[in-house]
């Protein structure tokens, strides 16, 4: 394949990656924005989404399209419930103290990951895509499902945006983000807002995984890379800024996809990791976040 088409392929792959990354990262960003919590277990919620999708599609006697849709509904709900429990019984009891919370979420990471290992096993298993559709471009064939993923991620993100800006619940979340104490004075049950936010963040990660799992496979360690990448996106985009997260997801998803195809994926990750560290040191507000 000559350079032009190869670049197009890289851009397409990067876009798919950016879409899923955006969804995952927005979940992480919401949790930090509203709760000021850095959730290191976020990647494991993602992984759970994929694992649960496998269980649902495997055990439900539906045709692939229906089973996958069922997974898209069930998996995020289950993961949301688990997240809400984790918030109520662990994070709340720590009063969301920043350093203690991170250590606790690290512990949760291991617990969730190893529980998945016990129940699902160490193998990677495929999940059937809801439909097979090969788009034939002049230079190469491309999976229509991948384009569907981009569209679906966009729809979900739009729904989240509408929820945050138009609904009462969204307003309550934003109010709690701006000033937790004042929100409490207005009668807002901050504990429930926090549990809900944590659950929503986890659900978004799980949904992203359900979208991507027909393309990759479900594996108990698959949460590691998305965690690092969404960290990178959220920090560079500015913790707590949704707009920054989206822009950064696009930039990082695309560049990671392109660098990975032209150079090595490891090198891409090294660059991204160092970039995060340097951004935090020299420009902690990221691209869009306000100076804390």
């Amino acid at each position, binding site marked *: 394949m000559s350079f032009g088409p190869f670049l197009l392929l890289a851009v397409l792959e990067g876009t798919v990656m950016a879409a899923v990354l955006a969804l995952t990262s927005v979940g992480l960003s919401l949790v930090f924005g509203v709760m000021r919590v850095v959730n290191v277990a976020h990647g494991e919620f993602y992984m759970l989404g994929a694992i649960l999708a496998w269980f649902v599609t495997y055990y439900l006697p539906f045709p692939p399209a229906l089973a996958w849709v069922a997974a898209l509904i069930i998996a995020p709900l289950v993961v949301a419930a688990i997240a809400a429990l984790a918030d109520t019984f662990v994070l709340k009891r720590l009063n969301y103290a920043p350093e203690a919370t991170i250590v606790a979420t690290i512990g949760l990471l291991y617990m969730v990951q190893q529980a998945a290992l*016990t129940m699902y096993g160490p193998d990677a298993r495929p999940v059937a895509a809801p439909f097979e559709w090969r788009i034939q471009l002049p230079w190469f064939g491309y999976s229509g499902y991948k384009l569907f993923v981009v569209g679906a991620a966009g729809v979900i993100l739009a729904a989240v945006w509408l929820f945050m800006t138009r609904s009462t619940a969204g307003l309550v979340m934003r109010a709690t983000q701006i000033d937790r104490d004042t929100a409490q004075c207005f009668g807002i049950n901050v504990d429930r807002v926090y549990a809900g936010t944590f659950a929503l963040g986890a659900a978004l990660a799980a949904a992203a995984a359900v979208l991507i799992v027909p393309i990759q496979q479900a594996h108990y360690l698959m949460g590691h890379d998305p965690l690092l990448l969404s960290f990178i996106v959220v920090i560079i985009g500015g913790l707590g800024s949704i707009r920054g997260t989206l822009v950064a997801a696009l930039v990082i998803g695309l560049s990671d996809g392109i660098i990975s195809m032209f150079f090595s994926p490891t090198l891409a990750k090294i660059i991204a990791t160092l970039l995060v560290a340097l951004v*935090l040191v020299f420009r*902690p507000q990221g691209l869009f976040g306000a100076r804390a």
Partner: protein
Amino acid sequence: MTERVKVWSVHLGVLALVFAAQYVLPPYHATNLARIMVLAVFAMGYNIAFGYTGLLSLGHALFFAAGFYGMGLPIGLLDWAPIPALILGLIAGGVLAGLVGVLALRTAGVSFMIVTLMFAQAGYLTLLYLNTWTGGDEGFVVDRAARVIAGHDLSLDGTRYVAAFGLFAAAMIACLWLVRSPFGRVMVAMRENEERSRMLGYNPFRIKLIALVLSGIYAGAAGAAYGLLFGYVGASFATIQYSILPMLYVLLGGAGTVLGPFLGAVLMFYLVDITSGYTDAYLFVVGAALVGLVLFAPRGILGNLRERFAPWLP
């Protein structure tokens, strides 16, 4: 009994017990204890940064790995003798800690944790990327012929135990001296009330950097010793897990106590050892221990003991 006598008797007593253990324990457990001692040195280093100075780093695996490869590469590629290689590993840990510190100490709290995590992760990925030299995840074996100090073969159980003990004892005594020194007091002051310490004339950046470098030297020494004593160097020791483990040992044993890291290392090592006999998912207990400690016992075993019964315990 004066406080000084109490402190030294307890610590020298523990050292004596550990030394004597090699004659009493069966070989499997003796080798475990040798491993635990080296890991305890790593954890003691972490404790200097975290327990005493309040720097919660998630990147110490980088300094351990620096010691690992700082020792392993010269021996493997350049035919160095073990002692100079060990010293190079030690220095590599300290230097890397200094470099990371100069950048990371411009941040604090959560940002500091993430920055150190990212540097460590970049280090691990670089080790993978350069796998022609480093052997990547598979790593490489350190030649048995090279692991001989003054005619003593380190691959033999007895010699290995004594060598591990030598490092452990030196590290513990140095740590005890440090935390009871004026500088040790300043480290704690930084952790307890940084603003006050600044207004007493102390430069927070300088103090924290020194603490981090000392911590890196310990980690580098532990890494170098681990590779030398157990004959293997690999990138898997540079993963996030090896940044979490020293933190866990310190939290369990008691952050800010000299003996805490060793106690935590012993308990956690055996907890994992026993669990892995039953299931592949033994890391679950690591996670559960972290959550449990943070929720219910953040001061750890010796920390709680000190608070209730023994305020003189350093």
